[in-house]
């Protein structure tokens, strides 16, 4: 088996920690509080997937990128401390208010500027907006092959393989690099950074790019470049449901009730 020196790019996003949005035990209402920022969980798995490929292919070089506010630096440093070689923060006031289209465009332009790459990794979706558009969008902007919702991927004889989790089974796809892969949440267990690597990452530091670095016009990015307009938002009102209790020795009545409500039907007719 020929081992390759690969160029990998991972896209990560900083999101509010979804587990800090908790349910109040007394009132059963959602209690959001001021959730702290973490790396989008699927992106941690994407980084780990890239590192696994690096483990298996010497001389592989990984770059992690994010479009976000300046404090997203810590997310990039965390990835670098795990073995990522380079971190780029793309930040500019002009990016504010971006929907998935300019987000994808901005990231694609950043990747074009980086130059050579073999594989791009993204998370399946973010926990804060959960569109799952950005990864596939970037692949379309760049005109490359893609495999979404993957649980594992590897490189063999210059080809990229990925396992896609489908409703009715697992599909293994084979792609020519360059290609893009989106990674499922919890598809692997992200490694811990060591103190040595954290120190090294901090010494190396990240690069910061702005709009001017990626050759896009201001009207293409941020709110101006966003075709979606949010007209209004509604929270879902849960319908009040009637409840009725049955004890184990009332099973006959329970079944009758289900049949009379049309919930339970017997096949044949």
């Amino acid at each position, binding site marked *: 088996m020929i081992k390759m020196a690969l160029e990998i790019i991972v896209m990560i996003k900083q999101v509010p*920690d979804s*587990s*800090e949005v*908790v*349910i109040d*035990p*007394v009132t059963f209402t959602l209690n959001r*509080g001021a959730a702290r920022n973490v790396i989008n969980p699927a992106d941690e798995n994407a980084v780990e997937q890239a590192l696994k490929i690096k483990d298996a292919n010497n001389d592989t070089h990984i770059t992690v990128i994010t479009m976000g506010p300046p404090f997203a630096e810590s997310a990039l440093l965390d990835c670098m401390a795990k073995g990522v070689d380079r971190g780029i923060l793309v930040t500019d006031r002009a990016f504010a208010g971006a929907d998935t289209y300019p987000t994808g465009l901005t990231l694609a332009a950043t990747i074009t500027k980086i130059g050579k790459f073999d594989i791009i990794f993204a998370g399946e979706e973010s926990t804060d907006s959960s569109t799952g558009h950005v990864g596939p969008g970037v692949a379309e902007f760049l005109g490359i092959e893609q495999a979404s919702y993957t649980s594992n991927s590897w490189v063999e004889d210059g080809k990229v393989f990925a396992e896609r989790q489908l409703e009715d089974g697992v599909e293994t796809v084979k792609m020519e690099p360059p290609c893009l892969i989106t990674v499922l949440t919890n598809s692997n*267990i992200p490694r*811990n950074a060591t103190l040595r690597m954290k120190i090294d990452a901090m010494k190396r530091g990240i690069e910061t790019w702005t709009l001017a670095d990626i050759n896009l016009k201001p009207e293409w990015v941020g709110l101006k470049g966003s075709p979606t307009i949010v007209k209004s938002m509604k929270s879902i009102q849960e319908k009040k449901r009637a409840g009725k209790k049955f004890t184990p020795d009332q099973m006959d009545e329970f079944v009758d009730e289900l049949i009379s409500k049309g919930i339970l039907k017997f096949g044949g007719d």
Partner: protein
Amino acid sequence: MIKIEDRLSLLNYKIDKSYEHITINPSICETCPDHFCTFACPAKCYTLIDEKLNFKYEDCVECGTCDTACSHGSVAWTNTKGGHGVKYKFG
């Protein structure tokens, strides 16, 4: 009185699926005369189920109490790694 389970459900944990930071030695617990851990642990990680000691590390708030509480040498206690474990909002 709020049940301990409900109080624990308020907490945010980053659970380490690859490392259990506390382990017990079941053969020691089997003959334990006091099961003091079940009273001492503030996160109810130690419970008796059918007279058998059951330990779950996921709810642990890393206080270190059980390491002192168990006087029979059953508890092997280490810190969580990599920022895993409990993550308080107020503290």
